[in-house]
């Protein structure tokens, strides 16, 4: 996933900043504790498909 896109992305739920995991497979919203997966380079930024993390 390209880094320029990451700069303007926000959590679709709270519109807060997203952070990419070290392995670059997920984008996480620290405020909502939601994780959005990246499929084949395309982030899936749907609240319904996000998973909770601790």
């Amino acid at each position, binding site marked *: 996933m390209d880094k320029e896109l990451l700069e*303007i*992305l926000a959590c*679709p739920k709270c519109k807060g*900043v997203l952070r990419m995991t070290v392995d670059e497979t997920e984008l996480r919203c620290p405020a909502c504790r939601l994780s959005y997966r990246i*499929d*084949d380079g395309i*982030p899936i*930024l749907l*609240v319904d498909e996000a998973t909770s993390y601790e």
Partner: protein
Amino acid sequence: MPSPPKGFTRAQFGRVASRYRCSTDHSDVEDLDLLFTGLALDAEHRVLDVATGGGHTAVTIAGRVARVVASDLTPVMLMEARTLAREKGVRNISFAVADAEALPFADAVFDRVTCRIAPHHFPDVRSALSEMARVTRPGGRVGIIDSVVPGEPSLDAFLNGIEKVHDPSHVRSYRVEEWLEFLSGAGLALVQSASFWKTHPFPEWSARTGLPKDVQWEVEMMFLSAFPLARETFRIRTENGRVVSYSDEKAIFVAKKP
């Protein structure tokens, strides 16, 4: 009438995604010239194309601006859009699976936002427009193209009724007056509006949404039994008892975020 669930819309477009990349209705980008005039695109602009579908709008715009982000609810559609971008050698484009009503972008990060021939699928157009306005910078512009219906209620019901059978993910094509209200409700000021009629060759249009033959025939019967005003308004052409083509009206709205 309740809207189809979004999962349903995704499943519908997932099944037929490649037909949209190849569809003449969606790849015929002449209406984009009209849209571009109103958008006043600049080589420095960052543009978001919402519900990009097969990616025609996003890929065309990418040739004129610095950066395009193409979003769609359906991952398979975005794969098709990415294929189109690669075929055309377009590299300044990024993709994100997103719901138009809950856009995953920070406030005011786009110079222009476009959405072409898609809002009639949105369960809540007002929310989608308010999201598009939110991600547009002050002074930026939002450009919309979608099918519209005439003010006459019987014509509105006729065409929306057919569209819903033809494409179960169809929610509603709106009247121009409704669009103007949606735009002002999202805090956007109209800069330009225009409309044009588009003719759809029936066999391709009918097959595009992947319906079983009997449902395609049901849609054709609806056209064949159209009342005279509908037949005339939508220019329904028939030959040997079969529908050859029909026309519908598309409207273009460009609005500015104050």
